[in-house]
């Protein structure tokens, strides 16, 4: 273990960490609204409709297959269909495709956790279902999603390492290329692991605090 070399590796890996963060956060920003929307659909509609069925199949697929397979599907199938995307957006798309499958459930749970009284009160005041959902239920649900969604961001950061397979030079791919150039794996892997660990732990540290603060200002919803 050579500390100067490790510091050198750290500096070389920082841009790659930036790419990892950019990939995960972009994917999260796209996937979360979709998850909330589809989740509230699942929460409010019966499970027999055709769209509900399709969503079930989609969720079953995403949860039952490795992200690597999903990445391959985006990577191989899109070009075959004539869709050409930059590598970055292919990576984002694969992550979104995966993450929505998990976030639908987060959204559904959040919407369902908002007390029924809220629906009834809003209806009594003369709002129709749609504006009740968008004006009153969703904002409250969104607040409840903060914790699980931050958790999902950690999952995305870890999942983004798999994008190294399609030669996206995020943190893991860059570390790999440094290893194969310098043949010093201990230092590189320790620095790489340290960067992932540091980022994910800072994230979950703030997630816990944010969640606590949001739930303490969430008085109305607590009573069921």
């Amino acid at each position, binding site marked *: 273990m050579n500390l100067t070399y490790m510091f050198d590796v750290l500096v070389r890996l920082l841009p790659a960490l930036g790419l990892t963060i950019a990939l995960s956060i972009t994917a999260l920003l796209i996937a979360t609204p979709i998850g909330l929307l589809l989740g509230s659909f699942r929460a409010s509609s019966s499970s027999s409709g055709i769209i509900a069925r399709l969503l079930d199949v989609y969720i*079953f*697929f995403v*949860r*039952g*297959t*490795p*992200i*690597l*397979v999903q990445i*391959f*599907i985006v990577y*191989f*199938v899109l070009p*075959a*269909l004539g869709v050409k995307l930059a590598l970055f957006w292919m990576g984002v798309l694969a992550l979104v495709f995966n993450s929505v499958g998990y976030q639908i459930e987060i959204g559904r749970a959040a919407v369902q956790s908002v007390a029924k009284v809220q629906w009834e009160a809003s209806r009594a005041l003369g709002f129709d279902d749609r504006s009740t959902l968008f004006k009153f239920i969703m904002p409250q649900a969104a607040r409840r999603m903060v914790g699980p969604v931050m958790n999902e961001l950690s999952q995305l*950061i*870890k*999942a*983004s*390492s*798999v994008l*190294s*397979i399609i030669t996206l030079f995020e943190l*893991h791919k860059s*570390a*790999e290329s440094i*290893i194969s150039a310098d043949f010093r*794996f*201990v230092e590189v*892997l320790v620095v*790489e*692991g340290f960067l*992932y*660990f540091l980022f*994910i*732990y800072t994230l979950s540290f703030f997630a816990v605090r944010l969640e606590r603060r949001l739930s303490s200002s969430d008085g109305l919803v607590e009573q069921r």
Partner: protein
Amino acid sequence: MSFDWLSFWEFLPRMLQAALVTVQVSVLAVGFSCLLAPPLTIIRLIAPWPARVVVGVFVEIVRGIPPLVIIAFVYFGLPAIGLMFDGFWTGVVALTIVGVAYAVEIMRSAIESLGRGQREAALALGFPVWRTYLELLFLQALKRTLPPLTNELANVIKASALLSVISVHEITQVGNALIFETFVVAEIMVQMTILYLIIVGALSTLSRKLESRLV
């Protein structure tokens, strides 16, 4: 892109063989995880502090690092300390490390969610600490751990796809190689997907059966 059944059947035997490897790696990794997690959880909870801290730090580090990086660690690390494993066993070790870390965390939080009353009551009745944990708390917690544990073990099976990077001939590696050999994409993708769904589905069916048995 039309679906070619001929190549579908042509590739199926090789893919099934690969599926067998995936099943073997998964069964071994899941099995070792289930064997190692309970004692480590007990250590995490009641052992003297140095052991407790070591297990805790291990769990936190593994949970904070992508499985792919863990695989790289094991792949480069084992030979460096003089252990020569082939890809298959390297994979089993790596996936076991991942599986155990998450399983310990799940079991720990399940036992802690039981509340202090149980523990205090057992200790007040003169049960030794380790028997309290092993016979009372652990067995009760087991039922609560089953759903999240199954989820996590399904993740371990899915992470076995990552072993394709260290050229273990499992589903993803073989499928990928076939795609680059033959440029047949859809048929192979469909096979990969179905095989994974079957394997992961088998695990969750098994766990559901076990859960209904435990009630």
